[in-house]
């Protein structure tokens, strides 16, 4: 996917929300959907199961208008979290310009977090990328839960963040940290332009 097209004066970014099942990826998109004015977003598409588990993906297109003469669009996707759905997850991940890893801060989900992270690494490598080159931010969701049930961001950093990637605490249901995360990943994606070559 072309990120910046100077002929047509368009900027398009595909950002994928990744993480173990039920960590809050879809919730992030729901919240964003709720806060973005009608004229700045498209329909949100959710391919989910009956129990509202993402089956294939969620898709939310954001149209941010013309910035510095460029039509700027962000396409947000979530992937299904269960290990089972790895095949479809790979599909959705293709063409991603940036990834938000949504981790479930609950102590009992630590293994799931790790497993999902390893899966991400493997999928990135298969796409000829890796944790260092793909613009990435961590979101430690569900920080609103009782303290004894969760790990604090520092601990999560220690457990998961070997690459010193920026991390943000969040409570996606209430919307805390959602836009910060989105902004952070967007900026990293755009900044990558002037540092590295075209993919």
């Amino acid at each position, binding site marked *: 996917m*072309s*990120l*910046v*097209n*100077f*002929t047509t004066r368009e*900027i398009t970014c595909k950002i994928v929300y990744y993480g173990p099942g039920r960590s809050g990826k879809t919730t992030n998109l729901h919240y964003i959907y709720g*806060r*973005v*004015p009608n004229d*700045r977003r498209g329909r949100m598409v959710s391919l989910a199961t009956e129990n509202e588990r993402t089956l294939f993906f969620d898709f939310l297109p954001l149209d*941010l208008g013309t*910035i*510095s*003469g*460029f039509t*700027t669009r962000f396409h947000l996707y979530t992937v299904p979290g269960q290990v089972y759905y790895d095949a479809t997850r790979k599909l959705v991940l293709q063409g991603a310009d940036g990834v938000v890893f949504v981790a479930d801060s609950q102590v009992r989900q630590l293994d799931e977090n790790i497993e999902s992270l390893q899966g991400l690494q493997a999928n990135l490598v298969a796409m000829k990328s890796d944790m260092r080159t793909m613009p990435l931010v961590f979101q430690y969701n569900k920080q609103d839960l009782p303290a004894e049930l969760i790990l604090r961001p520092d601990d999560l950093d220690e457990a998961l963040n070997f690459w010193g990637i920026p991390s943000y605490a969040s409570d996606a249901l209430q*919307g805390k940290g959602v*836009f910060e995360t*989105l*902004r952070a990943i*967007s*900026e990293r994606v*755009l*900044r990558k*332009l*002037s*540092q*590295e*070559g*075209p993919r």
Partner: protein
Amino acid sequence: MTEELNPRLTFDTLVVGAANRLAVTAARTVGESPGTAYNPLFIYGDSGLGKTHLLTAIGHLARQLVSDADVEYMTLDEFVEQYHAAVAAGQSEALRGRFGRVDVLLLDDVQFLTHRRELQAELLRIVEHLQAANRQIVLTSDRPPAEIQDLDDRLLSRFDGGLVVDMDAPDYETRLAILKRRAGERGVPVDPAVLDVVASIHAHNVRELLGLLNRIVAYQAVSEVPLTPEAAHQLLAGEVPVTRPGVLGGAPEAPPPADEFTEFLSGITQAVHEQVGVWRTRITECIKRWGGEGYRTARLEQLLKQEVPTGIERVIREYERDVDRLRGFQRAMARVDPHRVSDPIFYDPDRLEEADDLVQAALREGRPPPGPSPAWAFDALVPGESNELVLTAANAVIASPGVVYNPLVIVGPSGVGKTHFLHGIGNQLTGSASARVACLSAQEFVDELLDAIDGDRVEAWRKRYRGATALLLDDVHLLAGKERSQEELFHLYNTLLTDQRQMIFTLVAVPKEIDGLDPRLVSRLEGGLVAEISEPDLELREGVVARRLRAKYPDVDPALIAYLAARRADSVRTVINTVQRFLRAVQAESAEPTQAFAQAVLEGATPATRPSAAVRTSGVIPALASGVRSREKVVWEWPDPEQRVIEELA
């Protein structure tokens, strides 16, 4: 002849402030009455403060007041170029003459005089000359005369004897004034408060100041929102300001809206702007700037074609660095061979290596020696009995230079065509690309040597000639009595002979008959083939006459040719002169070119062409039977004493 003065640099566009008031006042005075007040005027100051602007302004003012004033502006480097070119062409006198006649001489960046003794000597001559004639000299430099290393004391005292002023960095008020004016000129509306911010920054010179203004202008061009002073401050401090759509500049106290999405949007706007908008303007500006100076900007244009800009700053930095290097090469080349300075290779940053190689090669080989003049074509030589031997030898030499007759020594009186032969053969020898044929007169040879001795560059001078593939020296007899020159020629001869390089010399008489020539040199010259050209024989004269006449009158009467050719002449020059005389008369009287007319012109009583009856001092003998003889005295033709006496009595 004069480089065009930049029309934008006048006194009107100059902003005067405390830092340059004195310099500007002095400059004005000089512009109004050149040569009277401060002479020479020496202006110094750091780069980018407006010295060139001031210099150019003086030129404009002088011309404005005296429309045909001869104003010359050049940088010292350009002066060096012209000087070298003139010396190489043997026309140093002409150069001096030209510079001696200007009304106002404007020399920029004279700090490069450092260590250049021969150049300083030349400049001193010019300065003295101009001052004596009350013509104006203005010089600029990045440092006062006393700080120019190794500057000739005489120049120093000359400068001190005039007026030395400095230009300092502009103060706040002046900076503000400059910014206002420049923004106005560009037709870009900038908030005065923003200009204030820019002026408050202590730019070291005007160039830097205008660079800051450019950034403001560029940012405003791509931003949807006018710049606020805070934003300007951030921008110039190296950060990128956050633009808030919907909040106009000028209301800095408005608190940011609590809307999450709007905040997000403004953050993105900033990021997009940072990454996308600014760089495009930046690249375009760079392309305009460097393209405008003549450099090939393909590398920068390539950046614009990319969909994803990669490492903009880095590419621009590298490009500018390469341009700098190119300039360095150009300067180096200017010192060696000024003619090649405008080779397009010096304007292509993608051919750095080639440029470097070119300069290295030039440095190794040094400036090429003067070559044969293309005006003397070998094919234009008219064959005849009188030059048959030389012609044969010449052809042999051309066919196998350095092998058959080496050296070839052409002997003959003045005007028989020795120089023509020399240059003609030289032109033939320059056929191959690697040929470096040195073809010059002995006088030039001596001048160059003297110059080299003066500038302590004798070894370099020698290298020049040692590197030649052929040495053609005219009028070697002029070396008589000049021991050093002969010494050098002697050594040069040995080197070239060993390397089998062709040498051709011309003299007015056979070597051994010339006084003052070193016997070693004589023996070497005699050791080659000495071929004489005698005065032109009939066949040759006919050939010359026919060629000249037919050039103008293709159907010329053969009898006319025969008549003109029949007249004795001791040199080809004489023949040509005769033909010219005839042609001029034909034109003047609109007559037909016939033999009868020729007779009338050359022998008859036409007042315009008949020599007057006054007493003569040379051997002109009016003898009706044999026609008019040449006025020139030649060694083997003296007027008949008897007839001479008759003339004097008459």
